[in-house]
């Protein structure tokens, strides 16, 4: 089992690199369309974004990159919760769960707002 430092370090790195890669693919796809005007989609939903990214839509790819990026720190908090729970560190389970629930609240209220 990896220690918390390495676990967090790897997950952050993988998240950012995945996002940068998706952005690069998205920009390349955009260049291939001859720099067409892209719509600024708002709240098209997670499944809609993935579907449009899978079909090679440049905006869809970049929005997927942004979603992966935003999810990275949230994932890091969730990961720490599991780590502290495994260690039986109740105080920090409580702290990370509090942070996580506020983040989820922000995401959910963002969707509806």
């Amino acid at each position, binding site marked *: 089992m990896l220690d*918390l*430092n*390495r676990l*967090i*370090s*790897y997950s*952050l*790195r993988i*998240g*950012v*690199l995945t*996002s*940068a890669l998706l*952005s*690069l693919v*998205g*920009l390349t796809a*955009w260049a291939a369309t001859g720099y067409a005007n*892209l719509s*600024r*989609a*708002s*709240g098209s939903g997670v499944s809609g974004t993935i579907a449009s990214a899978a079909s090679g839509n*440049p*905006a869809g790819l*970049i*929005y997927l*990159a*942004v*979603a992966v*990026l*935003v*999810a*990275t*720190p*949230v994932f*890091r*908090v969730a990961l*720490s919760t599991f780590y502290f729970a495994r260690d039986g560190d109740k*105080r*920090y389970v409580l*702290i*990370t769960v*509090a*942070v996580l629930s*506020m*983040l989820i*609240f*922000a*995401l959910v*209220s*963002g*969707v509806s*707002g």
Partner: protein
Amino acid sequence: MFGLGGGILIIPFLTLVEGVPVPLAVGASIVSVVATSSSSAATYVRDRLTNIRLGMFLEIGAVAGAITGAFVSVFLPAAALFILFGMLLLYATTVMIRSRRLDFPSKVLPDRTATLLGLSGQYEEHTKNTVVKYEVTRTPVTLFVAYFAGIVSGLLGVGGGIIYVPTMNLVSKIPVKVASATSNFMIGVTAAASASVYLFRGDVDPILTAPLIIGVAGGAILGTRILKLTPPTRVKIAFGLLLATISILMILKGFNIPVVL
């Protein structure tokens, strides 16, 4: 490098130099702040410079603040905020520069919260080849300030590092490098909360954002190398100068004086 997300540099650049409308600049900036924070935090966390426990604890205040900020942003005039924020920065600057000898605070007594949560730590100071042990004090005050920093972050689309770093260093007596690394760590979470709001509002432009993500992923890797090898006093002076410049720009902007870079 300074524990900032970079939003404070990206917003003026996009609005003043590139002429991008403010909401889109803020939207693109907050997304790239998540990228900066996460990629540099990855390095600091691996090198054990970050105080993960302290970061997690302060995130409670910071995230609550970011959500508050997103909600009140509708009611507050932006000009008032810019001026207040600028003045706060100027204050932080003077204190930071005057206190530059406080790099390795000694005889710090941990407060009850810090003891209860096991917040004391140590890190390797590469410029002196020593391991520095430190205690954390006045934790509740710093948590309170983190809440306000979170509000500013939600309102202005910056990470809040410009407030976290001086507060952790001056109030809680945390060595400046640890404060920078821990601030970086926290910013990712606050910025992710704010970024999701901008994303759903439709204020994230794909063509503006994608190059920023790619650039930031590369740039932050360079900055982390520099921080590790720079003496703490220089970090403080560089940080102080950066703060002074930005605070003046922000106050000017608040008074509606056009700023040309």
